[in-house]
C-alpha cells in the first residue's frame, strides 16, 4: 500500500510563503493498494493535484469522504478525472437521516456555489453510504466508523495484506473523556486505529490553544499522542494543520510533540507531522521483519 499526502491542512486552504513546507492544501490522501486500485481519502483542495497526477486513461476511482465539511469536499469540482467520460468514480461517505449523500454533496456542487451540477459531471459517478460492516475495494478491506467531531463524521481503516492505515483527520476523542484512563472500547475511533501500521490523525491545536477550542471537533497535540499511544499504532502522522500555523510554528509544535511522545514512551522515529506531497510505503509485515534483521 502506497500513501501520498496531497493536502494536510485543516479548515481552509492556507497557501503562501509561510506554509510552503508543510503545505496549504486541505485534506486529501491518495492510497494505491497492492493490486493497483486507487483510493482518495477526502476531497479537499489537495485532490486537484492528485487528479492531475493520474494518467488520462479509463479508470475506476474510489473517494472515501470522512464528512462533508468544505475542507474535505472543496476539491471535488476541480478533480480532473471527474470530467473524463471514461472514468468511473465511486464516492463513499456517511449516511444522514436528513438527506442522501448525493443530495448533500449536490448542495455544494450546484449553483450558485459551483459552475457545474452533479448531473452534468461527464464521468460515471455514483454515491454510496458506508456500510456498518467491513467491505472490500480491490485488495483492501475497508471499515468506517463514526467518530467524535461536529456532525456525522467517519474515520476509516484500510487493511491491505498485512499492512493497515487508519485515517481520522477530524477527531476530538478527548472531549469529556480522559484518554489515559478510559477503557479502550469507550474511546472514539479506537478500533479503527488499533495496532495500525500507520495512523493519520487530527493534531490541529497546540495544548495551549485547545482550551479556546473545546468542542470544535479537533485534537490538541497531547490528545493525538495519547490516542496514538493507547491504540498501539506503529507510526503516527499529525494531520489537519491549523490554517493559522506557519511552517515555523509547526516546527515548534512538532518539536514539543516529539518531546511529549518520548515522555509517553514512544519511539522518536514513529511520530511526524504530515507534510504535503510526502509519501509513505507500507510494506507487508513479512518484508518489514526481513528488513529489520
Amino acid at each position, binding site marked *: 500500500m502506497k500513501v501520498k499526502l496531497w493536502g494536510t491542512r485543516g479548515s481552509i486552504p492556507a497557501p503562501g510563503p509561510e506554509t510552503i513546507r508543510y503545505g496549504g492544501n486541505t485534506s486529501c490522501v491518495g492510497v494505491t493498494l497492492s493490486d493497483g486500485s486507487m483510493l482518495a481519502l477526502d476531497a479537499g483542495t489537495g485532490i486537484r493535484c492528485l487528479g492531475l497526477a493520474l494518467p488520462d486513461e479509463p479508470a475506476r476511482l474510489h473517494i472515501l469522504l470522512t464528512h462533508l465539511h468544505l475542507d474535505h469536499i472543496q476539491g471535488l469540482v476541480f478533480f480532473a478525472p471527474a470530467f473524463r467520460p471514461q472514468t468511473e468514480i465511486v464516492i463513499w461517505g456517511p*449516511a*444522514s*437521516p436528513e438527506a442522501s449523500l448525493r443530495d448533500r454533496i449536490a448542495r455544494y456542487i450546484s449553483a450558485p456555489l459551483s459552475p457545474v451540477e452533479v448531473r452534468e459531471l461527464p464521468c460515471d459517478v455514483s454515491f454510496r453510504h458506508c456500510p*456498518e460492516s467491513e467491505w472490500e475495494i480491490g485488495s483492501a478491506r475497508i471499515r468506517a*466508523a*463514526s*467518530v*467524535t467531531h461536529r456532525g456525522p463524521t467517519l474515520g476509516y481503516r484500510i487493511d491491505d495484506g498485512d499492512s493497515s492505515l487508519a485515517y481520522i483527520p477530524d477527531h476530538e476523542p478527548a*472531549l*469529556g*473523556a480522559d484518554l489515559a484512563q478510559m477503557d*479502550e*472500547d*469507550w*474511546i*472514539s475511533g*479506537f*478500533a479503527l486505529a*488499533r495496532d495500525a501500521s500507520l495512523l493519520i490523525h487530527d493534531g490541529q491545536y497546540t495544548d495551549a490553544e485547545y482550551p479556546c477550542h473545546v468542542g470544535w471537533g479537533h485534537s490538541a497535540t497531547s490528545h493525538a499522542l495519547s490516542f496514538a499511544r493507547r491504540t498501539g499504532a506503529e507510526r503516527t502522522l499529525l494531520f489537519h494543520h491549523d490554517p493559522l500555523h506557519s511552517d515555523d510554528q509547526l516546527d515548534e509544535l512538532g518539536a514539543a510533540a516529539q518531546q511529549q511522545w518520548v515522555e509517553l514512551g514512544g519511539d522518536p522515529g514513529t511520530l511526524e507531522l504530515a507534510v504535503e506531497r510526502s509519501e509513505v510505503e507500507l510494506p507487508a509485515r513479512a518484508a518489514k521483519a526481513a528488513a529489520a534483521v
Partner: protein
Amino acid sequence: MTQRPLELILARNLMSALSTPAFLVDEGGLLVFYNEAAGMLLGKRFEELGTVGPQEWGSLFGPFDENGEPIPYDELPLVTAVRGGRPAHAELTVRSTDGTHHEVEVSAFPIQTPHGSQGAIAVFWPTANGNGAEPA
C-alpha cells in the same frame, strides 16, 4: 474488544460532566455506566462496581415499588426505554450500599441512531418527600 457505538461514548462523556444522577444501558439492556452523582446516591462508584448484570444490580440496589416489592429488571424505565424504543417514567425507591432508601423519579429515553436503538439513558431526581440524600 467490541468498540462501543459513538452515541454511547458521547452519552457517557456528557453524563460524566453532569451532576444529575444518570445511568446508561447498552442495546441489550446491560448497565454499562453511571456517573459520579449516581454513585453518590447508590453509595458505590461505577469504577468500583463495574458492568453488572440484572441479577446483581437487583440484589444490590433494588429498586422497589411503592409497596416495597422489588421491581423486575425488565420493568425498569431504562429497560423499557431500550427495549420498547420509547421514553419511560416511574417513581421508585433505590437502596444504597449503607441501607438508606431513596425515593426518586426516573425518566429514561432511548438512544436512537441511524442503526437503530443503541441503548438508553435514565436520569434520577429525588422526589420532594424523598427521605434520602440531597440532590447531588
